[in-house]
């Protein structure tokens, strides 16, 4: 064996060892009555693929999605499907959506898509639909009813009348802190569809709703917010076990409102500050939430990541696979009736990087 060949083998082996040590391969033991019904799914979100010009895209954001796809493909046991939680693109252009779709096509699993505002406000989801299908829909999988909502709609006047061009409309909604933006909402038409969809589902069936924005009100200034959240929640309340999983916020959040559990997922692109770190505004981060660690910008993938999720108890349990950071698990505590972090929930166990100011 030549030196270069042995070196190559060594690197290959070292690469595989590194991958094994950082991947969440010790999957949780699931506990449906019928083990054949146990399953997990992976959740990737907020990749914000951003076109520069020609065939150039922002490298940093590309790397986040490429890594999530590669790691998801290595999961054992395999997830039954993958959810993508919205904001595949930054400004909803064909170039961005095509490039993102090409990366997602490398997933070895069926992928369901959620609409984000960065996918929508250029052509109101037209090109996204050509690639991915309906803006809202439901499906059943191994005894769980899944619903996907398009929660990033807003007032008709804002959408159809206010802006001279589609490009400007997209830019106005893309700026998270832009006061010219507009609050997200599911809207009456879709709520009526949801009411009818849920009508035929047994109320003991575990229900998991995927939306891009939180179906709860956290901070309006950055649209960590859905304007008709209460109306949507009212439709979920008849279910014994209702779960909402949302993207958009680029950070760990979780909450419990009546019988509805809420969990946010990470972005693969970049982290966002917790609203309490903006000194000029009131906000309502759920008190249950133990924040993710403050991001270290010198590690460009820090405070980003993806999740794998099980619904074994009828409640979602999220394993956060965090790049360049300690992984977290947030699961439902049946005794307390709300989600909690499996390591850090006790205030005595929290660590300094979880303090945001």
């Amino acid at each position: 064996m030549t030196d270069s060949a042995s070196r190559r083998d060594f690197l290959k082996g070292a690469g595989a060892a590194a991958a094994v040590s950082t991947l969440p391969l010790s999957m949780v033991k699931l506990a449906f009555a019928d083990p054949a019904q146990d399953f997990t799914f992976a959740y990737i979100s907020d990749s914000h693929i951003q076109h520069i010009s020609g065939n150039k895209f922002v490298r940093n954001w590309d790397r986040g999605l490429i890594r999530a796809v590669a790691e998801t493909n290595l999961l054992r046991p395999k997830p039954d499907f993958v959810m993508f939680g919205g904001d595949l693109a930054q400004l909803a252009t064909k170039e961005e959506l095509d490039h993102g779709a090409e990366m997602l096509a490398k997933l070895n699993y069926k992928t369901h898509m959620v609409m984000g505002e960065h996918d929508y406000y250029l052509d109101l989801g037209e090109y996204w639909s050509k690639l991915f299908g309906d803006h809202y829909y439901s499906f059943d999988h191994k005894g769980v009813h899944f619903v996907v909502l398009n929660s990033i709609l807003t007032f008709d006047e804002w959408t159809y009348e206010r802006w001279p061009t589609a490009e400007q409309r997209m830019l106005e909604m893309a700026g998270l802190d832009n006061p010219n933006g507009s609050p997200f909402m599911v809207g009456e038409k879709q709520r009526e569809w949801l009411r009818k969809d849920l009508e035929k589902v047994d109320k003991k069936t575990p229900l998991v709703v995927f939306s891009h924005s939180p179906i709860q009100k956290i901070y309006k200034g950055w649209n960590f917010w859905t304007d008709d959240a209460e109306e949507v929640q009212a439709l979920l309340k008849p279910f014994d076990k209702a779960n909402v999983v949302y993207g958009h916020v680029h950070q760990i959040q979780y909450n419990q409102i009546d019988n509805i559990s809420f969990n946010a997922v990470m972005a693969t692109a970049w982290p966002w500050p917790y609203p309490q770190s903006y000194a000029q505004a009131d906000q309502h981060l759920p008190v249950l939430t133990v924040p993710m660690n403050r991001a270290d910008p010198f590690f460009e993938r820090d405070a980003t990541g993806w999740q794998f999720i099980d619904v074994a108890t009828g409640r979602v349990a999220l394993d956060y696979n965090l790049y360049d950071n300690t992984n977290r698990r947030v699961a439902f505590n049946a005794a307390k009736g709300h989600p909690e972090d499996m390591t850090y929930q006790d205030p005595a166990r929290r660590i300094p990087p979880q303090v945001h100011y």
Partner: protein
Amino acid sequence: MSKKLFVVACGIIAAAVMVAGLGVRADEFTKDDVDRYQDEFMSVVEKGRKLWGSPDVGTNGVACGQCHPNAANTHPETYPKFQKQLGRVIAFREMINWCLQQPLEGQPLGLDDPDLIAMEAYAHWERRGVALAPGKH
């Protein structure tokens, strides 16, 4: 003119100037002045906000505000501080320059560049009211 007369004349002129107010330059300002100072500052803050949201500050179209809406998570009140990743105490504007070079893939600005000062002014303005905490990590 004798020396004595000259001194007296100068005294009279000086008194006249003082009475007319022309000699008051450093120690008095009006509410209009204060408003003008604030307007001057706010025009720079506004310029800083535009730069903060601009895709043209770096080279890859990424804007500061994508990661730092309302300049949150920048903590200008904690600078100068030991930036652990650089191993030395730096000023806030050096960290802005770091971001211009890394996530924005651009060039750093001169430390007295009006654009850099505008971005610094904007971040400070969004953080107004928060107590100074130099050195805080």
